[in-house]
């Protein structure tokens, strides 16, 4: 008995030791590779020159948006005059068809919204290019320069090597992203964008950087040559950012043409292209976040995201079926402040969620397109009305999709590094037929080289 216990303890200790050993190899892989990579990457002036250029570019872009929006506001104000009873025509927040009231608050919100949207899309673009660019040579360059063999003959785990490579590339991309936070915080001066919006945006950018970095790494491990890997990576990036949107649009049109009745465009649930098609399109997630900060209730970004998710962004359930064809004539609640996803609070102070909002009569059918309709009388000050776009409908899925993609591709990449470093599930070559009565415990699946 004691011998058995001792045996078990010894065995347990051995297994524990083995796990600890594997963890050690995993950890030293990450630390050794990332320290080596960061030493190379951060050496000299290059890294800091890139950072400076990047921030200058972002700053210039934000300034250009500011100047453009101010100028446009000025011209529309001059054309329309002040206080002539008409609400001013649409004037651009990002990306162009938002509207503001002719007062300073809304103008400012439009600028804040515009800068936020512009920076978000530009940073998305940069992350989309830089994150895979830093990783697409990670493994293939080592192969080309014949240094990979040196790494593979060390006891490091390939997952450790791969994560070390990814980590060191991402550290730099994260540095770029984080360095832009002060610049992006400028939007707080103008309004429309809350700190939570910025937090959302940065969470998404981190997830995107991880997913895209892993994409480059995977292709790098898959393809022998760096040149091929680079081309393939960027083709995949284009497919994700443009191809999916085009495919989705095509599907949507095809689905609509089969499901629409009469001339009225109906978007029923069955007539929509699957939303999942766009989960890996970072720009759609951007639009979701841009829409959420739109200073008014109608915005192109909202229209697009609403078309994707099938969720109306006017609180009225009756509007559900009429989006987006009837949208242009739909009533626009003239509420000037941070509209994004907001809910008008009624007198009792309770917020009303979009789903529970009482139906609002649709004025749309009676309205000519592009003409602003008066609010129905029911929508009075005491009438609880949810409006704007429901927040967080799309980007969390997109961010999750990028995280999952990143994890999966990293694991796959670790399997592709070397033919001797693959997970092998050892199968017994020959299984003796067992007598039916004896119950054999399941053959443990030996996983060699797990890490």
């Amino acid at each position, binding site marked *: 008995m004691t011998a058995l216990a001792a045996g078990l303890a010894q065995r347990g200790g051995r297994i524990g030791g083995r796990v600890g050993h594997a963890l*050690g*190899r995993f950890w*030293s*892989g990450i*630390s*050794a590779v990332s*320290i*080596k990579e960061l*030493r*190379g990457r951060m*050496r000299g002036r290059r890294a800091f020159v890139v950072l400076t250029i990047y921030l200058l570019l972002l700053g210039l872009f934000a300034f250009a948006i500011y100047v453009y929006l101010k100028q446009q506001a000025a011209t529309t104000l001059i054309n329309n005059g002040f206080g002539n009873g008409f609400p001013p025509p649409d004037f651009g927040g990002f990306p162009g068809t938002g509207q503001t009231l002719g007062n300073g608050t809304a103008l400012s919100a439009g600028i804040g919204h515009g800068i936020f949207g512009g920076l978000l899309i530009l940073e998305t673009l940069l992350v989309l290019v830089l994150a895979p660019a830093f990783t697409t040579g990670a493994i293939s360059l*080592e192969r*080309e*320069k*014949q*240094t990979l*063999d*040196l*790494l*593979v*003959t*060390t*006891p*490091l785990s390939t997952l450790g090597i791969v994560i070390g490579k990814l980590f060191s590339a991402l550290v730099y991309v994260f540095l770029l992203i984080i360095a832009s936070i002060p610049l992006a915080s400028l939007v707080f001066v103008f309004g429309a964008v809350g700190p939570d919006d910025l937090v959302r945006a940065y969470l998404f950018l981190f997830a995107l950087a991880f997913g895209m970095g892993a994409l480059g790494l995977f292709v790098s491990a898959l393809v022998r040559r760096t040149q091929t890997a680079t081309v393939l990576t960027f083709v995949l990036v284009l497919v994700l950012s443009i191809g999916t949107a085009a495919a989705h649009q095509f599907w949507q049109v095809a689905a609509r043409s089969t499901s629409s009745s009469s001339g009225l465009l109906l978007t029923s649930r069955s007539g929509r292209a699957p939303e999942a098609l766009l989960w890996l399109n970072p720009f759609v997630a951007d639009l979701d976040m841009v829409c959420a900060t739109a200073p008014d209730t109608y915005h192109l970004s909202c229209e697009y995201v609403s078309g994707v998710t099938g969720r109306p962004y006017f609180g009225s359930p009756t509007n559900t079926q009429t989006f987006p064809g009837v949208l242009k004539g739909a009533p626009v609640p003239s509420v000037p402040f941070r509209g994004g996803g907001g809910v008008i609070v009624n007198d009792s102070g309770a917020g009303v969620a979009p789903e529970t909002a009482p139906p609002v009569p649709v004025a749309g059918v009676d309205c000519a397109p592009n003409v602003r309709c008066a609010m129905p009388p029911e929508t009075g000050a005491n009438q609880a009305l949810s409006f704007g776009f429901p927040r967080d409908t799309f980007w969390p899925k997109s961010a999750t999709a990028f995280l999952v993609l990143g994890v999966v591709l990293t694991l796959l990449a670790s399997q592709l590094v*070397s*033919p*001797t470093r693959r997970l092998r599930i050892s199968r017994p070559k020959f299984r003796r037929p067992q007598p039916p009565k004896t119950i054999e415990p399941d053959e443990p699946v030996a996983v*060699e*080289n797990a890490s």
Partner: protein
Amino acid sequence: MSIAVRTDGLTKRYGRSTAVAGVQLEIESGEIFGLVGPNGAGKTTTLRMLATLLPPTAGDAEIGGHSVRRDPDGVRTVIGYMPDTFGVYDDMRVWEYLDFFGRCYGMTAARRRQMIGDLLELVDLADKKGEYVQDLSRGMQQRLCLAHALVHDPQVLLLDEPASGLDPRARVELRELLRELRALGKTILISSHILPELEELCTSVAIIDHGRLLASGRVEDIADRFRVGGVYRANVLGSDEKVGHAEQIFAGLKDVVSVVRRPGGLLELALRGDENTAATVLSGAIRGGVKLSSFAPAASDLEELFLQITNTPEVHA
């Protein structure tokens, strides 16, 4: 003497072609073992399988008691591998290069510092510690690569063509270095297609061609097994045709293992037996009408042996 490296039917196939066909080797610890063969013979594939870089198609190998198939991680801790064409990382200093591999083996900072100093001293690069790796000369890079293979003080060194591309002086230095390592008790497996660099160094050799092991063992044992009495050089007078004719006559004689034609009417003959057979061969050739200006034994060294063994199938085909 314990066995440091043992291969058992080690085989590697790529589709239909066989790179290494059932190689059986036994290398005692403390030996300097030369793996010799022409380009494409399967030397590098064999070494890569031993270094756990390629999974064998069939067969197995054991290094320091660890199986290449079942316990590759165990193998990795006991070997130091130096590939034939090795790269260096850009943007890395000499000490960082070794520090990196020290980290790979999970060494503590203090041990790494100690190891870097010792190894740079050993490979004579102590004064290059702070230089960039890519700025070193080829020979220095080679020594640095050897140092990298020694980071974790392995029992067995697998060196693939360590002397290729080195000038004679660097080659001599490398040889000295390998002797020092042997004195430290390491088992060294060297591959090469250039024999003179192994000749003075190796205690044993294996000759490999077309993926097959043709001979292995102590140099003297191999010579005995092929019963080579010696290699003779014959200088044939006359035109190319005459030389070709002479080649045929020599090849047709009894006790001639192989004939290799060299420029300038020179033929190299590997003969079985002793001086008496050489005399018989000589008289046979003269009876055949071959005009010779000289016929003398060449220094019987590894290269002659190598040429003789790798040429044998062609001559007899």
